[in-house]
């Protein structure tokens, strides 16, 4: 299983700080697509992904037990 954390407006869209789901074997891009379909998440293509607190590209493969975080870049200042 995987713990998937959401930051900023993604957390509001999902309605929870994190989800527990089975993402082992999927790429980051595949997981994003699944989540977009289920939760209507906005602009996931520009959202940054961390696997175990390390930056991960869209084609990186998730292993069982990895902790995933989705962090949207913001522009306010």
């Amino acid at each position, binding site marked *: 299983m995987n713990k998937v954390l959401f*930051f900023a*407006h993604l*957390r509001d869209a999902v309605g929870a700080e994190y989800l527990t789901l089975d993402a082992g074997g999927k790429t980051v891009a595949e997981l994003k697509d699944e989540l977009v379909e289920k939760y209507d998440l906005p602009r996931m293509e520009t959202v*940054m992904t961390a696997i175990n607190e*390390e930056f991960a590209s869209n084609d990186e493969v998730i292993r069982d037990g990895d902790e995933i*975080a989705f962090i949207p*870049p913001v522009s306010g200042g």
Partner: protein
Amino acid sequence: MNERYSRQVLFPGIGQEGQAKISSKHVLIIGAGALGSGSSEILARAGVGKLTIIDRDYVEASNLQRQQLYTEEDVAEKLPKAAAAEKRLRAINSAVEIRAIIGDATPELLEELVGDVDLMLDATDNFETRMMMNDISQKYKIPWIYGACVGSFGMSFSIIPGKTPCLNCLLRTIPLQGMTCDTGGIISPAVQMVIAHQTAEALKMLVEDWDAVRNSLVSFDLWRNQYTSMKMSKAKFAGCLSCGEERTYPYLDHENMTKTTVLCGRDTVQIRPSSAGEISLDQLAGQLSALGYTVKGNPYLISVEIGAERMVIFQDGRALIHGTKDLTHAKSLYQRILG
């Protein structure tokens, strides 16, 4: 060393030697809104040698909730933020050389300015300007520190050319934005938290303690009690057009820049004339008054009521049209006044 800086000289990370370095450095801060007013105050108090601050906006009532250099009087006088910031920073530390530039951060302006700049701080509110800073940083090998916030959420990342990934590696393209900034609002503690991270990184770089510089992107949500640190070395992208082998610095190219922009989080359109040049504000104000418009002004700008909208025109021909997000409508109002 001066009694004034005694508490930070006592801090082992700085010391006498670090303080001497800080006082010999030049920092460029782009933006004097929430992040810029806060970080410029911290660096001025810390005794940085020279601060250059660029901002295109003026102080409004809705800024006072989070923009720390400004007062009710600055709002009443409609002072440009860069001018109001300069005034307060001088009262705080008269030993710091401060240069305030009222205007837009264009590639030309930045290329002209950065000759002796040691560090750039991000205090802008849009990714277009950040991508431009990022290209300038890579082209002239000047580190910069990304910072941004919305709601109770914020983030920061330190970018050192030749060492860390750059902003273009992370984003690959300018994110479509607007929604979060328009709808999320902002609380002042989130601003301060970003500033704390940006200025701590700035001090490390100014004293040249490069090993202490954070190699992760920090993000946090103060209302939700979240904090995370993401290691970034794997984000480096060999094909990056800003920092890769085949770099072209795409965001220094005017073709990639808009002329008309809806300002983030505000019912306001900015119009930038395609050619640079000064206009006579006095003359224009006289003409408009004669036409029956309500016109107010100061040496830096004039403000004109036009029906439900309000247009603020700066000396360089740039204008802000408040009360609309419609680019075409805004452009037509602009052309009605300035031809």
